[in-house]
């Protein structure tokens, strides 16, 4: 792929191997696992990483994650890895995060710098009058490692909040997957307010926790770090993945229910190429489209309090029945059963 495209893909090499991936490597080495076995199949050697100039692709990073998961064979690997992720050791980007004035600013920055701080999972922040909702989207087709990534990133965000504010914050967690066997890891590393089998992977925090000024805030130094971090982001390459950009585009056009051809045109490629690229990321246009519509429907239902009729007409469904059927197909449950679940 060319460097001019405004997004990164599964095989774009832009992740500094000596930063986040090295954290996972250290975790494995610390548990007595051989570096060759950890890096097997990734096309990397420990010496390359030590040199500090190697860039790897999301695909290689995912391979390393898969190896670490298999070799460490412990339920807490993802959480321990997550706790080391943020603010991390990524120069100006990490510094800007650590010097943020309040948590809202920190989370917004995390979203803006996601290509540097969390290239595999995209954080999305939305707020209503009472709560901030941070939900996570798969950026590069994580496949079976998605649960690992979600655990790691939610643990990272929780630990970041705790470090910056100096106290345990009252997060609520929603996961799409069913309650796992090792739920005690979630209790210890995340918190007690856990909900499984939800329609999206989401964390929720009361808004006043986000607006509280942080003890370590450094407004002037923070502003400089932010500027440097943006320059760092600029030189690292595209700021978001293809799936991420597609999600934005789908949200912007959600009321028109656009087809694959229109989307391909917007991304300046033929429908065949577009389909192939999505397949490479282990997804399809239909899946991405459905997800964007589901998120809008959830927002309207949970936050705006819309009824099925109103949502159906907003999203240009034929009627409420049609919407109800689609909703059930997306989430496995009818909209009525969700009425209270996310905000209650």
């Amino acid at each position: 792929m060319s460097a001019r495209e405004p997004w990164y893909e599964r095989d774009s090499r832009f992740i500094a191997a000596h930063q986040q991936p090295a954290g996972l490597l250290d975790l494995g080495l610390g548990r007595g696992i051989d570096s060759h076995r950890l890096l097997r199949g990734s096309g990397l050697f420990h010496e390359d990483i030590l040199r500090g100039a190697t860039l790897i692709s999301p695909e290689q990073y995912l391979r390393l994650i898969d190896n670490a998961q298999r070799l460490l064979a412990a339920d807490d690997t993802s959480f321990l890895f997550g706790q080391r992720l943020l603010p991390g050791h990524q120069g100006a980007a990490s510094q800007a995060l650590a010097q943020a004035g309040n948590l809202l600013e920190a989370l917004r920055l995390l979203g803006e710098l996601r290509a540097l701080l969390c290239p595999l999972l995209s954080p999305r922040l939305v707020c209503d009058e009472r709560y901030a909702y941070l939900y996570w989207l798969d950026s590069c087709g994580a496949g079976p490692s998605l649960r690992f990534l979600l655990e790691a990133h939610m643990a990272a965000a929780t630990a970041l909040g705790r470090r910056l504010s100096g106290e345990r914050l009252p997060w609520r967690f929603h996961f799409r997957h069913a309650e796992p066997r090792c739920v005690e890891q979630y209790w210890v590393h995340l918190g007690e307010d856990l909900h499984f089998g939800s329609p999206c992977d989401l964390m929720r925090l009361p808004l006043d926790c986000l607006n509280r000024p942080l003890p370590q805030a450094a407004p002037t130094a923070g502003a400089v770090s932010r500027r440097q971090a943006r320059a760092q982001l600029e030189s690292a390459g595209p700021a978001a993945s293809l799936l991420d950009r597609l999600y934005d585009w789908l949200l912007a056009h959600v009321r028109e229910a656009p087809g694959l051809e229109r989307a391909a045109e917007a991304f300046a490629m033929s429908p065949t190429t577009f389909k192939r690229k999505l397949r490479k990321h282990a997804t399809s246009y239909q899946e991405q489209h459905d997800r964007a519509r589901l998120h809008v429907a959830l927002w309207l239902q949970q936050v705006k309090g819309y009824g099925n009729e109103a949502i159906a007409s907003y999203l240009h469904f034929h009627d409420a029945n049609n919407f109800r059927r689609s909703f059930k197909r997306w989430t496995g449950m009818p909209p009525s059963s969700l009425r209270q679940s996310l905000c209650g």
Partner: protein
Amino acid sequence: MPSLLRHHRLKLLAVVLAANFSLLLHLAAGDPIPVREWNPLDIFGEGGAALLALVWLGLMLSSRPAGRVTNLLALGLGCVFFSWWTDCLDEFVRLPESVHWDHWLESAPMPVGLLLLTYGLYHWHHEQLAISAQMEKRERLFREHLLFDKLTPLAGADYLRRQLQLSLEESRREGRPLSLVAVDLDHFDAINQRFGHAEGDAVLQAVTQLLLLNLRRQDLLCRLAGDRFVILLPHTGESQARQLAGEMALAVEHLAHKTRQHGERLQLGASVACAMALDEDAEQLLRRLNLALARAKQGLALSA
């Protein structure tokens, strides 16, 4: 070469030499049997047995430090191997009728080996009892090494769940109470942040030893996850459990842990909670314990 095998070089050398000696003796006295007259079934059976004896010897030596019991077991298994090996050799070498020592070479080491092995196993049994006594408070009722974590080393949540299930049944049968205590380190994340994750691991190991020292013989300590420990207290009511929980919190507070790098004193603290088993299953009890701990932690945030 695994590190433990290094202590046993002499024994391995002796086995190789003995096998070689027997082979040379056969070749010197008899004639090789041509390949077309070999009996594959006999070769497979006798050779396979000899090979397995060698594998047992290897596994035993690579998993045990040197010592009396190890020597006995090695000698016994060595004799068994030698006997089967010699037995296998006459499939390849035909000895003249006049030679009789081959029967001795084949049959004499076997009973000697088995006797030595039996004697060794008897002592191993005593050794195992001594080691099990050291595992007290970390293991109850059944053993499963796969469920122990590599760090502390204590049993994890899966072992606790199975153990709790058994203990709940037992307590219901006998009509005696059963309680759980949770111990969670305060500000553990800050220790990891300030002193590094290796220091955090060292703290967990130190606290594990400390908690073990403060428990009664029948209690079981497990690491639930991260910095959270759960203690299973058989035959214990709620007030006694609460008292024990308080003792654990005090013990952690008074532990003067020093960092590995600079020997700096770390001020540790722990939140504790306890729950007595009511009419519920292991999962519900653990969940209730966890919520009680969350309430204890909330109080901490307010007072801090």
